């Protein structure tokens, strides 16, 4: 933590709102990014954002400089994500899941998909893959889902994820391995079969 950041935190703890805002605007894009990649819905992501920073605002006096401010902030973010219940979500994800997998003849191998950039229907195909991925992520447990998004979409190191989620690196790896296994199974129709 830089000295400048320390000063902002101390000022925020004394009730300096400008300092508080300056402090959170250093990280709020990441918070919104985590929220969005976790929840995949703009309104819900903004809800999570509000809740996170309201908690930060109310709790800043309890911040004791025992960890990086960002770690503390992202820990709050992940907690809010894990406990967030969307109002709209139950409608957003219907059970696409339970649909039988695409017909054998329609299956495309992964290499086909990847080399398909020029094809006219590549966009449609990408959105099909995206939907399938999103659908697979929804089937993960909240913790697996969180580790998956933090790692693959937000690019955090396993070590960072462990401190954000307040657990061991081993636990994070486990979540990650299980998530990978489940996702590969889920996406196998798109993968090369050999």
């Amino acid at each position, binding site marked *: 933590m830089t000295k400048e950041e320390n000063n902002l935190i101390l000022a925020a703890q004394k009730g300096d709102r400008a300092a508080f805002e300056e402090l959170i605007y250093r990280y709020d894009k990441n918070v*919104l990014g985590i929220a*969005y*990649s976790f929840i995949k819905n703009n309104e819900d992501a903004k809800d999570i*954002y*509000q809740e996170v920073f*309201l908690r930060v605002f109310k709790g800043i006096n309890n911040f004791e400089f025992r960890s990086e401010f960002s770690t503390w902030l992202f820990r709050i973010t992940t907690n809010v994500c894990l406990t967030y219940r969307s109002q709209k979500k139950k409608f957003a994800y219907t059970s696409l899941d339970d649909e039988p997998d695409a017909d054998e003849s329609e299956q495309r191998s992964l*290499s086909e998909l990847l080399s398909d950039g020029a094809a006219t229907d590549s966009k449609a195909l990408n959105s099909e893959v*995206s939907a399938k991925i999103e659908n697979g992520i929804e089937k993960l447990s909240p913790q697996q889902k969180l580790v998956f998004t933090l790692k693959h979409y937000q690019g955090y190191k*396993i070590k960072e994820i462990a401190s954000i989620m307040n657990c061991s690196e081993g636990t994070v790896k486990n979540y990650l391995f299980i998530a990978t296994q489940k*996702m590969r199974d889920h996406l196998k129709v798109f993968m090369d079969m050999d």
Partner: protein
Amino acid sequence: MEHQSFKELIQLALLNELSDDQMKELHKHMIDCSRCQAEYDSLTQYFAVIDKNKPDSVDEQFLHDARRQFRTKLDYELSRQTVIEKIFHSIQKYFWLNKGAVFTGAFSLAAGLVIGYFVFSSGATGMNFFTGENGGRAGKQIITNVRFLSSDAASDEVNFVFDAVRQVKMKGKLSDPEIQKILADALVNEKNPGARITTVSALANQVSENKAPNPKVKDALISALKYDNNPGVRREALKALLEMPYDNRINDCLLFVLQHDKNSGLRIAAINGLTLAKMNGQAINQETLNVLNQKVKNDDNEYVRIRAASLLKEENIQ
């Protein structure tokens, strides 16, 4: 090393999570292991798919909207806190200036609209009344019955009164005289009629099982019967008193109700009480005869008049 471990190392390698030594070890193994080579290729493909389908990153407009919404929310939160703090400080000042101030209403049966409870337990400000610390081991302090006398938006001044009640949680047996005493106090002091009814019923339940009632309970029931302005409370009190061994005090209460209670249902219950007592062998004294005579002539309620007349008639025959 097990093959499974190498599978995990491959994954970590592709995620840039391996140390140089681990990387070397993995490469060494893969030269001879076709299964791991295949796994490496397959995982590479999988990660490429995941990477290609990453959700869009947050754009500036999205971030801008989220910030704007948050500022509005924070404004609201701060203004709410200011109001709570203002009330809190004036309450604190009040108690500072009136150090000996007694809490009005010693007990609350945790019923009714309790503004203070909402204000101070919302957790937003973490303020805790009197104790000045979080948690409040001694129980929650309740600010109740807040009445605004005046408020002046221009000068930012508010003027209000309230009752400060310390909420005490008690658990005990109704047959315990101490509990009965507290409930009896509550019956007298509680402002919420619903809570008073509950209290009386609780006492009444105890009374029916207890032949020698607690005098304090009896006093409380008598004053509830005579002076409570809620007819439901009076009715419950009367019911409870009639469960007690009949004596002159109870007789006087029934007469009091017959003469003064404006609620005809209660006067009917009172005259039924007198009838029952007589059937159980209680003598009717002169005072009672006087009241009955009076009732025959001028009670608004026909049933009361008829019952009074028949009681007098039976008395004259004997």
